[in-house]
């Protein structure tokens, strides 16, 4: 649901400008996930379900620590687990996977439904199921495989970054539950500083000399950022894309190609009207003299 307490910056499928664009003094919010201190306890998963009122889902066993294969329409937050082995030994990589709240969201770009996806001035990207038409273009537009379709209601769901809590001045539910303190929430600016400090600490004091902060530029930066042991290989963390981008065809389609079509249709209608004014109807002489 759009949150009345938060200024809206962008609306999907919306004609004309948006009231809150570039006028808000809201802070950019950000969730920082330090994968190097995550123990994979899944408290954040439970907190997410508790706050949002969904039931725990059935788990599956695949010989690893992974509890289920993917996030779902009613399971927005999942620890991705990977046993990574290389010349340095075995590593248990755990990453809390949820919506990244991109500054340039592919879901919102692709969505044709007015008001089904909104981006608040504080950076949160939220789905409004009331306006969702179930076309699932958002799924296509998302480089992180986040939006999930509910086949019963024909609506798409995802992590809201607890927009309902943030709008009321609270932290997201997952942040509250983390026992190791690997989750942090604050302004984007502060979280970036904290993340860089932690990455620097890892590079200097541990064997993780490639530690770094994941805040990909391809989607304008994200409002969920990670500290990774090895920033050169984000794909090891359950398929985190190295250089996520909104698909180029979605971009082309939403801008130049659409306008070519719009102009074509306008010219088509104008053309026939002009023809009518210039040449008018074909008159059939009632006393057609041409011989059969």
């Amino acid at each position, binding site marked *: 649901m759009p949150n009345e307490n938060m200024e809206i910056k962008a609306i999907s499928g919306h004609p004309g400008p948006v009231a809150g664009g570039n006028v808000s003094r809201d802070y950019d919010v950000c969730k920082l996930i330090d994968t190097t201190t995550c123990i994979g306890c899944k408290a954040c998963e439970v907190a997410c379900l508790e706050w949002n009122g969904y039931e725990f889902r059935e788990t599956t066993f695949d010989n690893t620590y992974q509890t289920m294969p993917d996030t779902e329409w009613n399971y927005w937050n999942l620890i991705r687990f990977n046993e990574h082995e290389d010349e340095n030994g075995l590593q248990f990589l755990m990453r809390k996977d949820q919506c990244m709240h991109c500054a340039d969201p592919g879901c919102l770009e692709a969505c*044709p439904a007015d008001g089904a996806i909104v981006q608040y001035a504080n950076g949160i990207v939220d789905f409004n199921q009331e306006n969702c038409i179930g076309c699932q273009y958002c799924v296509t537009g998302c480089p992180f495989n986040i939006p999930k379709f509910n086949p019963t209601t024909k609506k798409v769901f995802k992590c809201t970054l607890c927009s309902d809590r943030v709008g009321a001045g609270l932290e997201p539910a997952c942040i509250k539950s983390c026992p190791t303190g690997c989750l942090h929430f604050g302004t984007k600016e502060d979280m970036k500083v904290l993340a860089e400090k932690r990455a620097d600490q890892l590079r200097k004091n541990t064997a993780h000399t490639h530690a770094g902060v994941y805040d990909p530029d391809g989607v304008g930066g994200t409002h969920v950022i990670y500290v990774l042991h090895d920033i050169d290989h984000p794909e090891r963390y359950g398929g985190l894309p190295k250089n996520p981008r909104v698909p180029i*065809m979605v971009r082309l389609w939403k801008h130049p190609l*659409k306008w070519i*079509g719009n102009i074509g*249709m306008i010219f*088509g209608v104008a053309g026939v009207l002009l023809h009518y004014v210039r040449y008018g109807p074909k008159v059939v002489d*009632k006393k057609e003299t041409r011989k059969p």
Partner: protein
Amino acid sequence: MSSPTVVREGTILPAGEIVRYTHKERVVHWVNGVTYLFCMLTGLAFYSPYLYWLSYVGGSPAAARTLHPWSGLFFFVAMIWMHSLWKLQMVATPEDKAWKDGIKNYIENRDDLVPAAGRFNAGQKLFYWAMYYSAIILLLTGVVMWFPELMPRGWHWVLTIVVPVHAAAALVTIGAFIIHVYMGVLMVPGGLKGILYGRVSEEWAAHHHKLWYNKMKKQ
């Protein structure tokens, strides 16, 4: 107006009229037309935020999304049925070449210089084939867009291609549709009557489709 009991194409009726379209042809035309119109309006709603209000012809935007593919499916079925009736008549004939060469005279209403046409002139045939092939593309791409949830996530990139192709084919039909409706309703008086009631005047037939008229006269 009472309907004639004789519905064979080309039957000469009293009062100087001739059967232009049979009952079956008119039904298939309008099933095709109505389902097309619904798809066009709801499709335009999904195409542009400025036309999103058109989705209310389906009841609500979400209902329009549900109904659009069904309407499209019926449109395609009607198209196939129409094809079974008209495919042979839509094949290009030698006189089409002359008609096409003189299209400027046709457009500028110098009809005395326009070569005689058969039951369908070259422009009508072009319209038919544009709709027919577009319908095939729209069906193939539309089925993919109907149930994206059945598509494995790794195949989702296909949608980024399929959606613009669907729209491109739809735009071809919209261009053709604009011209078709303009000609049927405004540019060629008598055309709309022909497809509604199946009858045109003999003068109309002789003026616009002389070769067809001559052939029907002889029978």
